C-alpha cells in the first residue's frame, strides 16, 4: 500500500471508532475487514483520535498501560503490553458519580504513578521509574470498548485507545520509598461484594515494570513522559463488568482506597454531543 493509501485507511478507521464513540454504537472489529492491520497503524489511528479530541480542547494528562498480565497477553496472543492516552475528560475523583458515556464498561483495580520528573531515554529500568515517581495513588480504571462484544484483536484495542473508558484516582498519595509495590494487595468490590483480589506482582511482576516499558516505548516513538503525568500501570486482577448504578470500590490497604458510582444510562453519545454542540465531525 502506498503512504497515501495507508493514510486514507487510518483516517477511515479512526473515523469509524470516533463515530462509534460519539453515537454510542459499537462497531465490528477493525481487524475483521483489515486482518493485516499492524500495531503501528493501530497506534496511528489511536493518535489521530487523541489529536482530534485535543483540537476540541481536551488535554493529555498521562497514559495507561494495558495487557500487563500473562492471561490477557495469552488471550490476545501477544508478549508485551500496549498503551493508551489518558485525557482530562476521562478523569474522576473518589466519591464521584461517573457520568462518562460508557458502552460496555468493566472495572479494574490499579496503582497510578504520578511522575515528579520527566522519564526519558532508552533502557529505563524499574529503579529509574521509582526514582522519577512522586507518589502512587489507588485507582479504578473503567475500561470500555467501541468494538462490539469486546471481540478485540491486538490492533483493535490499540486503535481504540487501548480500550480506555475513564478512570478515578484516590486521594491517598504514597511515596514509593520503602514500599514493595509487587507485594501490595488490592481488593475490588462491586456493590460491597468482593469480586476480585490481587497483588502488584500481577502487573508484569512489578507495577513499575509497566511504567518502564511505557517510557521505553514512548521514547522509541519520539515522545516523553513528563513530570506530573499520571500512569495507570495495569490491572492487578481480571476486569469485572459493571452496570449503571453499581458502586465500585478499590482498596489497596495502607495505600488507600477509591470509590465511584457508575452513572445512570444517559442520553448516549450523540445527544450528549449535540447538547454540547461542538464535537460531531
Amino acid at each position: 500500500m502506498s503512504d497515501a493509501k495507508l493514510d486514507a485507511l487510518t483516517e477511515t478507521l479512526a473515523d469509524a471508532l470516533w463515530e462509534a464513540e460519539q453515537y454510542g454504537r459499537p462497531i465490528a472489529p477493525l481487524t475483521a475487514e483489515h486482518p493485516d492491520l499492524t500495531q503501528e497503524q493501530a497506534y496511528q489511528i489511536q493518535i489521530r483520535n487523541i489529536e482530534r479530541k485535543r483540537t476540541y480542547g481536551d488535554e493529555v494528562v498521562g497514559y495507561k498501560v494495558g495487557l500487563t498480565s500473562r492471561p490477557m497477553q495469552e488471550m490476545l496472543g501477544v508478549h508485551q503490553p500496549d498503551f493508551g492516552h489518558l485525557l482530562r475528560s476521562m478523569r474522576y475523583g473518589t466519591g464521584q458519580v461517573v457520568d462518562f458515556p460508557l458502552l460496555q464498561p468493566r472495572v479494574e483495580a490499579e496503582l497510578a504513578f504520578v511522575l515528579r520528573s520527566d522519564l526519558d531515554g532508552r533502557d529505563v529500568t524499574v529503579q529509574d521509574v521509582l526514582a522519577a515517581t512522586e507518589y502512587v495513588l489507588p485507582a479504578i480504571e473503567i475500561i470500555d470498548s467501541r468494538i462490539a462484544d469486546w471481540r478485540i484483536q491486538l490492533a483493535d484495542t490499540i486503535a481504540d485507545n487501548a480500550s480506555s473508558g475513564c478512570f478515578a484516582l484516590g486521594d491517598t498519595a504514597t511515596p514509593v520509598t520503602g514500599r514493595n509495590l509487587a507485594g501490595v494487595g488490592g481488593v475490588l468490590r462491586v456493590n460491597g461484594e468482593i469480586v476480585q483480589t490481587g497483588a502488584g506482582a500481577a502487573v508484569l511482576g512489578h507495577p513499575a515494570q509497566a511504567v518502564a516499558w511505557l517510557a521505553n516505548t514512548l521514547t522509541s516513538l519520539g515522545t516523553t513522559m513528563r513530570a506530573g503525568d499520571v500512569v495507570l500501570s495495569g490491572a492487578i486482577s481480571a476486569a469485572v463488568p459493571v452496570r449503571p448504578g453499581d458502586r465500585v470500590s478499590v482498596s489497596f490497604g495502607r495505600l488507600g482506597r477509591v470509590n465511584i458510582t457508575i452513572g445512570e444510562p444517559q442520553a448516549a453519545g450523540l445527544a450528549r454531543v449535540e447538547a454540547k454542540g461542538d464535537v460531531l465531525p
Partner: protein
Amino acid sequence: MDLRAIAEEVWRHQVDATEMQKLTERYPGLTVADAYEIQRLNTDRALSQGDVLAGWKMGLTSRAKQVSVGVEEPIYGRLFRSQELTDGELSLAGLIHPRVEPELAFVFKHRLAGPQVTARDVWLATECVMPAVEIIDSRYRDFSFTLVDVIADNASFARFWLADQAYSPYHCAWDEVGVAVRQNGEVKQTGAGAAVLGHPVRAVVQLARMLAQVGQAVEPGMVVLTGGITEAIHLHRGDEVVVDFDGLGELRLNIRD
C-alpha cells in the same frame, strides 16, 4: 444407605490415590449431614491407625467458589498430622491431580467453640498466624463434584505446609496482605487476604460455629487453614512454586515424583 460402606470406599480412594465416580450420582439421597458423617467416620479410622488430628481447613470461602457450587456458606475438612509437610519437598506419590493454594493459617492456644463465637473470641484464642500452603486433591474424576461429594472427600484436603515464621495475630491487617504465586518464575496468581470471606478471621468464626452444631471445637494447638487466597494452580513434576506473602516471607515448593 450404609454410610460406613461409603466411607470405606472414599477412604480406599484417598489411600490408593485413585479417581472415583461422584457419590451423589450413585447415592442421590446423600445429604450434607451424611457427608460430614462420612468425613467423621474416616477421621475415626485415621485416628485408630495412629494419625493425629492437626486441625481444620475451611473451603469454599470465596464468593465465586460458593456460587460455582451453589452454596451460601463455606465447608470444613480435617487436617491430619501425617499429611503435614516439614519442608518444601512435595512428592506426587499418593496424589491424583493436586493443586496448591496460598492460605493464612491460625494456630490456637485456647479452645474455641460455641454457636456465638465472634472475631474477638478468635483473636483471644489465637497464638499466632502463619503463611501457609494447602495442597488440595479431589478424589473425584476431573476434580468435578457437588457440595455433598466434596464434604465426604474431606473438602479435597491433601497436604499442608506452614511457614517457619509465625506472627502475632495483631501483626498486620490480614485482609490486606497481598499474595503472589509464581510457578517456574512466572506469576500465575495474585490475591489479597480479603478474598477469604472479606477477612480470614471470618472463616475461623464460621468454622467455630459450624463445629458447635456437631459438638466439636478448635482445640489448643490446632491449626486452622482459613481458605484459598487465590485460585489453586495445577502442580506438575519438576515445578518450582514460590508463594510470596507481602512482608511475611515466602514458601518455596519443589514438586517431585
